[in-house]
């Protein structure tokens, strides 16, 4: 299914896994060089700045080319068929397949731009068809299903984070629209259904990320987990439930009571704390950071309904509390305790050295007999691309 060479993806995973171990000094330089040489990655993966440049230029080309074609095709007749964007999208997609296979692009900017552009054209075309069909019920559901299928296919094929995120959002939208078709009962139980869907998605993908099959899609799995966590919170957030309830029942925004409101308050207050707790317990950065952001969301939600203090006093007090808390934790963690430390993460602080090391390695490996058929110049272009990012700034 996936377009990229699986062997290279595996090699990339191994090299990426061992790079922090090397910078942290858990393995020696010779071992790292040996492993890198034996696991070549032949993808074209330039540094960030190159990717940005290529992305912008490809997008310009795609836009100008489609407008040129449209201009030529519709010089006399007004354009009015959803077939046209779908046709253009397919053309764009074929080019994308061709380039990715031929040039071994791996999220290099060119392929990203073409992927999003063709996805946009195809999705837009399909939505256009659905709108033209004038279906009275279930058109939202149909649209969401089409987008979900499209993005799932593209994600499975190109392992792209953005299409992965859109696919995940579209699937949740599908669940929502499907349940909404159940009528009154559906609307009343909506938050719980969304919670179940989001929690199921999180745990399912969490298992997948431990599985060897998820190896090709590490970043996609991560983004899906993140969106699931956010959806899980939003499904039970008092403000969200309240506003949705008002909207669906035609009530004004002044209406602040909801049935079983107590449950949602508990959810709003406790879930971020649960996230942070598990984040610390499992040493999981994503849970911890999501929890921290959601605490802010919960505070904001609370302030919409209850004004305990004037805003300036609240700001000052919370500033003092946060500063004091952060300061206490920092001084507590001066010496690492319980497996936690305040020191900078090991991957980050050696970033500069890593580039130089990457170059040294690229040079060293050019004298080693290649284990697989990997041209040396390719090797420098690979994730030895420590050299690749050295170009930035």
């Amino acid at each position, binding site marked *: 299914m996936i377009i990229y060479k699986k062997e290279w993806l595996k090699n990339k995973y191994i090299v990426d896994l061992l790079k922090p171990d090397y910078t942290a000094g858990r393995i020696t330089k010779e071992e790292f060089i040996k492993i890198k040489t034996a696991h070549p990655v032949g993808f074209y993966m330039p540094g960030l700045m190159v990717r940005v440049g290529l992305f912008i230029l490809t997008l310009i080309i795609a836009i100008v080319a489609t407008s040129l074609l449209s*201009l030529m095709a519709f010089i006399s007749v007004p354009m009015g068929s959803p077939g046209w964007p779908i046709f253009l999208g397919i053309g764009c997609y074929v080019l994308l397949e061709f380039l990715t296979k031929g040039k071994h692009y791996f999220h290099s900017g060119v392929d990203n731009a073409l992927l999003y552009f063709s996805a946009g054209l195809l999705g837009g075309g399909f939505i256009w068809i659905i709108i033209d069909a004038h279906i009275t019920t279930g058109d939202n559901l149909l649209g969401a299903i089409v987008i979900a299928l499209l993005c799932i296919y593209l994600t499975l094929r190109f392992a792209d984070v953005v299409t992965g995120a859109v696919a995940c959002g579209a699937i949740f939208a599908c669940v929502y629209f499907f349940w909404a078709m159940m009528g009154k009962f559906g609307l009343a139980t909506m938050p719980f259904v969304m919670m179940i869907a989001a929690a199921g998605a999180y745990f399912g993908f969490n298992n997948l990320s431990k599985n060897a099959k998820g190896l090709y899609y590490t970043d996609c799995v991560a983004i899906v987990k993140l969106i699931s966590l956010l959806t899980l919170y939003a499904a039970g957030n008092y403000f969200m439930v309240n506003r949705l309830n008002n909207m669906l029942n035609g009530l004004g925004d002044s209406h602040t009571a909801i049935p079983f409101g107590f449950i949602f308050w508990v959810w709003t207050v406790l879930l971020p704390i649960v996230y942070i707790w598990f984040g610390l317990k499992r040493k999981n950065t994503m849970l911890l950071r999501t929890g921290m952001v959601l605490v802010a969301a919960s505070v904001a939600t609370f302030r919409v309904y209850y004004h305990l203090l004037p805003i300036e006093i609240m700001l000052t007090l919370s500033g*003092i509390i946060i500063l004091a808390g952060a300061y206490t934790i920092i001084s507590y963690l001066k010496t690492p305790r319980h497996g936690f430390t305040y020191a900078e993460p090991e991957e980050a602080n050696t970033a500069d050295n890593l580039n130089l090391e990457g170059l040294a390695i690229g040079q060293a490996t050019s004298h080693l007999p290649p284990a697989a058929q990997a041209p040396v110049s390719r090797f420098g272009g690979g994730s030895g691309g420590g050299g690749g990012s050295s170009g930035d700034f």
Partner: protein
Amino acid sequence: MDNDIYKKLHSEGYLGDDSYNQLSQKHLTQLFSVHWELKTLLYLGVMLLSGGLGVLIYKNIDTIGHQAVLAFIALISIGCFIYCFKKKIPFSWGKVKAPNTGFDYILLLGSISMVTFVGYLQYQYQVFGLNYGMATFIPMLALFFIAYYFDHLGILSMAIASLALWMGVSVTPKTLLAYGTFNSKQIIFTYVAFGLILLTFAFLTQRFAIKKHFKFTYHHYGIHVTFIALLAGYFDNYESAANFVWLVPFFALAAYIYFDARRERSFYFILLTILYSYFALASLITRVLYGLMKYDAIYLLLMCFIASAIGLIFLLININKNLKQDDHI
């Protein structure tokens, strides 16, 4: 899964026994860093506290009085600077690390409150009278001094911004600014001069090795300001055919920056130069073709854009490859 990989690498002989033992014990010994989380909290705390205090003072200015507020701000500023002078690592023309985590934040707080103090003084009591140049010049000098003395890139950016403010204020009297009828040509010339000053600073920084790591900041702001100002000059005089003289310094500058970036291997600046030049060239071609062929030019133009953008992509890929090859030698 990761442990399986380690095991496999070990059995294939890529990892020695020592390394393998360390790696398989990693999840037990590895520390979990909460560095960025705590730093974010610190930053958030400073923001909330200063915002809250600001509103608090604003609402109670009648009972507190301006002198008290001024004294309070001055106290914060002086306190911060005393701390920084006591704790700082001795000055050097190279890069100097901050002695501890809080240092940079305290220095920043001190500088911001100093600027606020001067601004407040001017706003409330017109200490500098109508001499707005002076009111912006003094904080600017102070900021540059602090940036170099304590080696703080954030304050360098503040200093550059206040240099722009000072130059802008000095050429445009307040009355003109207030009525929105300022002379745009004068502004454009000022900002070209401003950009060139920054680029000169960048050059001197590099040439005489004065805090070399400041070069990026100067260069970054200088390039954007100069290119945008020159393009603004070009479009400001669009009616006259002679406006292409604005593009002469533009391309000269682009060439200079391009070769400088090649030497420094900075792909960021190469990319900037290429994109800005592409924009300038595209508008020039559009103009020429439109002048020659009127509306029939559109097909040719669009094809030009496509071809040139494809060419640029190959150029970028090539430059990137060359830069890397150079690195290997």
